[in-house]
């Protein structure tokens, strides 16, 4: 195989963003008829690399070579014409159009009057659909198809062009087991036609079942390529997280109090099922899992943004019903949301007003907001959290990510919550602010706050948590104490391995 001409070759790809070297000299190649896994933790550079391949980002250095030809791709359309096709995690189809129109969008066949040649369009499409052995035809409206079948439409789209390389980004994320089987058959078919396939997934079982070789990225750097047949999970994990963590594992430095929050058999439709856990005063419980594992949805339920379909929530031993954020706030539950710009802040509002927003009703003298009280609260948390801003009048949108996040954290600390939920506390924040926020979370715990931290970054979750709840597709797979957890066991738990033991 090593003598064959690669379908796609990357040479020393470099991509930098202000302050971050997102890709640092990444090279690897995909052979025709090979399924090549691309692995790495969140933030390792996989998505940046895919955006470079898809023509969304221009690399700052390095070359992309398709069938021994150096290519430059300035747009997704150009990437497609060069033979690189994406099957996205989030599907990008026009739901109101037919399957055929979606597949040939932008290049619909037309007759000499400039009108669409439907006959020809449907024939061409049905020919492709037959090859994929799907159970729908060219005339079906895409919106009527299941997610799995919509994915098939994307794949069919890939087949209309002479695809040299097809990239699957977490293709099984929303598929049932039966649908997965069909997908894998299609991938085998593509393989047999000499297409090179890049397969991005966190799920170990799929990686071992489907792929020929595995390339691992870490911190934007190429870490090595393994032959799947001669590799173990441990080897992969080693490569993925192999760094000496500069973050020392957290040691419990104080006693925990009584259970502040207890969740019993909580379920919410298909989002998560049968969730039970508790958080004691002074304890940080980390929730770790893949994106879509149901962690954020649990947080949103505790904050009154979703209604559970079954189960109980107890606060200080008393059952509570949380129907809105207003209820949650009154009960002493605070949520620092996942997406600070969309959910956390009013960017066009100044820092002080953002921070006091949840309690503005209480900060009054007579009918008016009491400026002095607001400035006092802001000043207190500015000093405590070391928020760097010239004045409280600065618009939240003008602060750096780390300072924005501190405003949101300050906003909720000033409510003196019993339970503080922090969803992705350091997403998109520079390294310096990250460790400050980690330290802050530990400090808050030692002051007796009950804290839930949701994170997709393993070093972070290992660093801040006293206990770690590992989730996989809406279920808790295992709960670890800080003492017993290992990186390998955590990765296994969130990849769905050992699921069978648990279910059985």
């Amino acid at each position, binding site marked *: 195989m090593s003598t064959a001409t690669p379908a796609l070759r990357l040479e020393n790809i470099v991509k930098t963003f202000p302050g971050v070297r997102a890709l640092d000299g990444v090279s690897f190649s995909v052979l025709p008829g090979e399924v090549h896994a691309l692995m790495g933790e969140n933030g390792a550079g996989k998505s940046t690399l895919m955006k470079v391949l898809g023509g969304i980002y221009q690399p700052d250095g390095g070359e992309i070579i398709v069938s021994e030809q150096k290519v430059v791709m300035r747009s997704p359309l150009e990437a497609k014409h060069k033979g690189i096709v994406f099957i996205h995690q989030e599907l990008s189809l026009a739901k109101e159009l037919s399957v055929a129109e979606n597949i040939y969008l932008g290049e619909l066949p037309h007759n000499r009057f400039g009108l669409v040649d439907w006959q020809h369009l449907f024939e061409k499409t049905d020919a492709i659909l037959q090859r994929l052995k799907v159970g729908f035809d060219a005339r079906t409206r895409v919106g009527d198809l299941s997610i799995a079948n919509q994915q098939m439409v994307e794949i069919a789209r890939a087949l209309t062009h002479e695809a040299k390389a097809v990239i699957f980004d977490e293709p099984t994320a929303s598929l049932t087991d039966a649908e997965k089987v069909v997908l894998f058959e299609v991938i085998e078919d593509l393989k047999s036609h000499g297409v090179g396939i890049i397969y991005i997934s966190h799920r170990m079982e799929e990686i071992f079942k489907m792929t020929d070789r595995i390339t691992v990225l870490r911190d934007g750097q190429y870490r090595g390529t393994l032959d799947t047949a001669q590799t173990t999970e441990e080897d992969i994990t080693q490569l993925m997280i192999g760094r000496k963590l500069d973050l020392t594992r957290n040691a419990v430095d104080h006693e925990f109090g009584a259970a502040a929050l207890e969740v019993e058999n909580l379920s919410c439709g298909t989002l998560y099922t049968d969730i039970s856990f508790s958080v004691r005063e002074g304890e940080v419980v980390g929730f770790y899992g893949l994106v879509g594992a149901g962690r954020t949805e649990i947080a949103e339920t505790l*904050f009154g*943004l979703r209604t559970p379909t079954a189960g109980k929530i107890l606060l200080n031993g008393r059952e509570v019903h949380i129907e*809105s*954020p*207003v209820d*949650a*706030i009154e009960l002493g539950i605070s*949520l620092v*949301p996942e997406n600070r710009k*969309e*959910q*956390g*802040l*009013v*960017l*066009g*509002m100044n820092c002080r*007003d953002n921070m006091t*927003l*949840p309690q*503005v*009703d209480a*900060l*009054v003298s007579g*009918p*008016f*907001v009491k400026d002095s009280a607001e400035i006092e609260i802001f000043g207190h948390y500015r000093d405590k959290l070391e928020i760097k801003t010239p004045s409280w009048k600065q618009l939240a949108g003008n602060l750096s990510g780390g300072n924005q996040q501190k405003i949101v954290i300050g*906003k909720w600390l000033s409510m003196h919550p019993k339970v503080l939920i922090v969803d992705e506390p350091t997403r998109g924040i520079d390294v310096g602010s990250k460790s400050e926020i980690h330290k802050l979370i530990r400090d808050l715990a030692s002051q007796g706050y009950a804290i839930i931290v949701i994170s997709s970054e393993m070093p972070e979750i290992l660093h801040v948590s006293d206990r770690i709840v590992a989730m996989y597709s809406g279920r808790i797979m295992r709960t670890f104490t800080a003492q017993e957890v290992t990186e390998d066991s955590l990765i296994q738990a969130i990849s769905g391995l050992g699921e069978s033991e648990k279910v059985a």
Partner: protein
Amino acid sequence: MAGWTRSDIGGFLAKQGILIAFFLFIIGFTIANERFLAPENIMGVVRSSAILGVMALGVTFVVISGNLDLSVGSMMSFSTIVVLDLHDKLGPALAIPAMFALTLCLGALIGFLVGYLKLNSLIVTLGMLSAIHGLTLTYSGGKNMDIADKGGTWFSIFGQGEIFGIPVPILIFVGLAALLGIVLARTPFGRKVYAVGGNGVAATFSGIRRARIVFACYLLSSFCVATAGLIQASRSLGSQNTVGQGLELEVLAAVILGGASLLGGSGTIFKTIIGVLILGFIQNGLLLVGLQFYAQYVVTWIIIILAVWLDIAAKRGRLWSPLA
């Protein structure tokens, strides 16, 4: 100006364009007609702007909360017709509260649809523009409404009276502006209006009941409309069914001219007052230089387009951009 690049100038024009255009208008009008800056003309403009101004105060709240209100024109016709009709049936002391109650019901309906049912405010209020017009015509049977005894009612004070030599409509406008200006700038409610319009999701995540705030803004807007209807009815003591027709666009133009963003989250009562006066002076100036009254509709439209363009341009810091 040495060293300014083209995009610097574009950015400056985008931010200050409305004021620059306004001053150019003023200079032009003053040269064309020396009466333009005479005190009695200025007083006249303020007086005739009062009705528009009162309505713009309420719409300012709606726009800051991130919504639109295109129903205020026909709602004002409704208020005017109803209060004139009830004046002779119930007497002015009962007619006024009854008219306010009915108008507030309309505001509550819009607030319910946009706030609680989360329907698009453009569609809801555009529909209400037409529906309320139909309601008014049904109520009046299509006829003009007149007070029988025009000389013998204290009702005329709201539109025609003067206190210490200042016309009552101006006093109402200034008083309401001061009150609502304080509500918007200084109370928790005002703060929440900005939060809901600036980022409704973040407001919800901060425990603000977004629907309730939107509802309150529409209720407030209908209160302002009722007040404007009262001034209008009192001034003329008789009215056509279409007295407020087209005012919704002028009100919106004034609010945007003042610098409130159509996307919500920004604007102040003071800025709206400036917008109302700019619009009033430009329309007055056009009349003084001899333009036909009907040409004002076209000019108002041009001003709206200019204001919306500059609003977007100010956001991206340049007059034109290939991206949205």
